[in-house]
């Protein structure tokens, strides 16, 4: 089984027209082609490299990660001699990905990376999540390297970045018992040790994903007497220092492949990343946007797993003398599951493209993606169980694990409610409407114009709702949802123009959005 080959949508987005511009920028017009065997010679060569490497990821996801997922869910990680030991399958997954040279694919080549653009990297994350959403955290936390690359000095980069390729794992140690969503309240203390000429970290971190990672980015209070986010700095800690105690592993509802730990920092030596006081306001915000997009990929991957699981079951299970997929009520659920997955994926890769070409639009789309994809992944996992009927309630079936794994997606890296807060400012300043106008300005296929007109009508309706709502905070979620439906409708329509296979999902998502916006109108009007 190959998760890249069996999902043609991935190659479709990999060959999106905007990829040319992205590749050119990423490869700086191919200056390295002469002297580096790993550097592509031109756009086609780069896309071919992406395709070939994604094929390896797809094969490992299908042949190693996915078959391990059930045992990993049962076994989970444990603490042995103050170290976290992964479940056997998790360890195998990690080694398989490392031995295939797949860690650090987005890092520059001088750090043993492949300098891949963000789109193929996110595709890899999507496939990994489809196989095992828990392992996707361990794999995905290599995002921390991006933060080191962007903000740390050369000495730190040279020390840490080449280790990613060798399979050293990362964690971002942000939350504490009294600082969850509210990171401004972080208390873990950083003091400069003049004698040892390094920073020392003391305090407790809680709910740390992959808590016993080799390389840790730690948010800590470096400014004595400060109380808000401006007193926080970001540090890098090396596990080799052995100055952190793993106090416990949380007993979670799902994603058992991903250990979540409570940690005690005992005078732990650490290095400052970038400038003091910029920890939360600049670096963590940047890290967070990457992580939110990562949860978007994780959600789409899990949704894909659930849709396929449901489709397969509905094709096998017979009742009243026929396959259950032949019942309208069942097919209706399947169609909407597929439409939501396709639409969320379209938004995922649109956002990923903008991360490299237009940060403002990426920042604007990220919360919409995070909210929709994670909420829909939950709905789709719920529907997967529904399709399975009584069997779906039994532990023996995969849908039960997917349902539990999905639940965290709307919570971590910023709850859906916090995504609305992040998106709200783009409602008021008209940024979403401007972006929607740009989406409308596209050469849609003739036969799709009636659908485009529906989207125009939905946009008009949204404007009315916005005026009626007075942009009040109580209505922000509904407004962001309306915007999300319109954006995904347009994106699906562009996809359908390029490939007719998306037609059904496109029609369904526009229909669903139309209904939701009409409901919102009535609700806000009251």
């Amino acid at each position, binding site marked *: 089984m190959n998760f890249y080959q069996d999902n043609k949508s991935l190659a479709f987005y990999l060959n999106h027209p905007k990829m040319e511009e992205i590749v050119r920028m990423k490869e700086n017009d191919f200056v390295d082609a002469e002297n580096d065997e*790993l550097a592509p010679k031109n756009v086609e060569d780069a896309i071919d490299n992406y395709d070939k*490497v994604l094929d*390896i990821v797809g*094969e490992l996801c299908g042949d190693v990660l996915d078959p391990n997922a059930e045992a990993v869910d049962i076994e989970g990680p444990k603490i042995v001699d103050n170290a976290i030991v992964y479940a056997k399958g998790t360890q195998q997954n990690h080694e398989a990905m490392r*031995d295939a040279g*797949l860690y650090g694919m987005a890092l520059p080549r001088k750090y043993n990376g492949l300098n891949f653009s963000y789109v193929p990297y996110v595709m890899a994350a999507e496939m990994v999540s489809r196989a095992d959403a828990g392992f996707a955290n361990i794999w995905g936390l290599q995002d921390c390297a991006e933060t080191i690359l962007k903000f740390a000095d050369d000495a730190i980069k040279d020390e840490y970045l080449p280790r990613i390729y060798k399979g050293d794992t990362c964690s971002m140690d942000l939350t504490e018992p009294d600082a969850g969503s509210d990171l401004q309240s972080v208390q873990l203390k950083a003091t400069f040790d003049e004698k040892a000429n390094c920073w020392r970290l003391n305090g407790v971190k809680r709910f740390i994903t992959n808590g016993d990672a080799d390389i840790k980015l730690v948010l800590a209070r470096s400014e004595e007497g400060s109380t808000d986010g401006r007193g926080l700095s970001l540090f890098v800690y090396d596990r080799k220092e052995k100055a952190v105690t793993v106090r416990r592993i949380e007993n979670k509802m799902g994603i058992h492949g991903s250990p979540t730990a409570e940690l005690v920092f005992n005078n732990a030596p650490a290095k400052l990343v970038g400038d003091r006081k910029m920890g939360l306001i600049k670096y963590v915000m940047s890290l967070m946007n990457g992580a939110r997009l990562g949860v978007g990929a994780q959600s789409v991957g899990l949704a894909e797993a659930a849709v396929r699981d449901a489709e397969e079951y509905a094709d096998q299970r017979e009742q009243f003398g026929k396959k259950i997929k032949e019942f309208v009520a069942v097919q209706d659920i399947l169609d909407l599951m597929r439409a939501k997955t396709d639409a969320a994926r379209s938004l995922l890769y649109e956002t990923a493209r903008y991360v490299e070409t237009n940060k403002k639009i990426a920042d604007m789309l990220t919360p919409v993606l995070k909210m929709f994809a994670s909420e829909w992944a939950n709905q789709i996992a719920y529907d997967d169980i529904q399709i399975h009927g009584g069997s779906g309630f039994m532990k023996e079936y995969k849908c039960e694990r997917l349902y539990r794994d999905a639940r965290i997606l709307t919570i971590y890296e910023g709850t859906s409610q916090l995504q609305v807060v992040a998106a709200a400012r783009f409602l008021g300043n008209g940024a979403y409407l401007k972006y929607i106008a740009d989406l409308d300005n596209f050469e849609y296929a003739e036969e799709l114009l009636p659908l485009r007109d529906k989207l125009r009508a939905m946009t008009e309706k949204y404007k009315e709702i916005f005026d009626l709502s007075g942009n009040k905070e109580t209505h922000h979620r509904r407004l962001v949802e309306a915007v999300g439906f319109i954006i995904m409708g347009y994106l699906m329509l562009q996809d359908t123009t390029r490939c007719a296979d998306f037609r059904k999902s496109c029609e369904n998502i526009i229909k669903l959005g139309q209904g939701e916006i009409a409901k919102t109108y009535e609700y806000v009007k009251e």
Partner: protein
Amino acid sequence: MQKKDFQIVVLAKQVPDTKNVGKDAMNADGTINRAALPAIFNPDDMKALEMALMCRDILKKENIDVKVTVITMGPPRANEIIREALYRGADNGFVVSDKRFAASDTLATSYALSMAIKKLGHYDVVFTGRQAIDGDTAQVGPQTAEKLEVPQITYADELIAVTPEMIRLRRVLQHGIEVVETKLPALVTVHGNAHDCRSRHAHLVIKKKNTEIPMWTADDINPDFDRLGGKGSPTKVKNIENVVLAKKESITVSSDDEGIKGLIEDLTAAHIF
């Protein structure tokens, strides 16, 4: 004195993927319709490649310069499996291809392969899969060893030790296992139970995707032309029949100790177990 370089040869075959058989898989005369089946790296040969790479890993730690070379005989497009081997870590590879090899049986094939190996000059160990999924003869490996006049270890499923002078392997046999050792050079045929081959490596795929794969013709391996192809193949296929196994009767075994004991006795008596 320690040898400073160590040459490993892997013999591999591109075969039709008989696991994914469609309705057009067989020709009317009972032969395989190769065009209708995807071509893959013969599974046992892939395991032979892994064993070769494991040998290289071990010997490299002793600072020995080790090269793994893959040779395949087949049509020009068999270079696909050479590339696949390069992606997984082989150092280089050749396709031996010529119309004059057509219709080779195992005798002619092993002759051509042995001549290709000799052309490489020095070699220390040759690995190949126990058998190919299209022919299932398991003869080419042993016959090649005969022609090279080197010792052979067949049905190896685990590499236990290798040094520049010897190799020690575990063999799987019908009634158990045995551990054997031979001095080198030698030829090893690898059983399907052996370790799966490592994955393609992202960096190797990018570096080697455009590598030119050299092709050798019959002239390049200096053969006795009478021993090649149909001319060198005494095996003549008279007829191929498609045998479909069908269930003729069923028996019910009670799920207690006695029933199971009876079942074991019956299977043993019928030489199935």
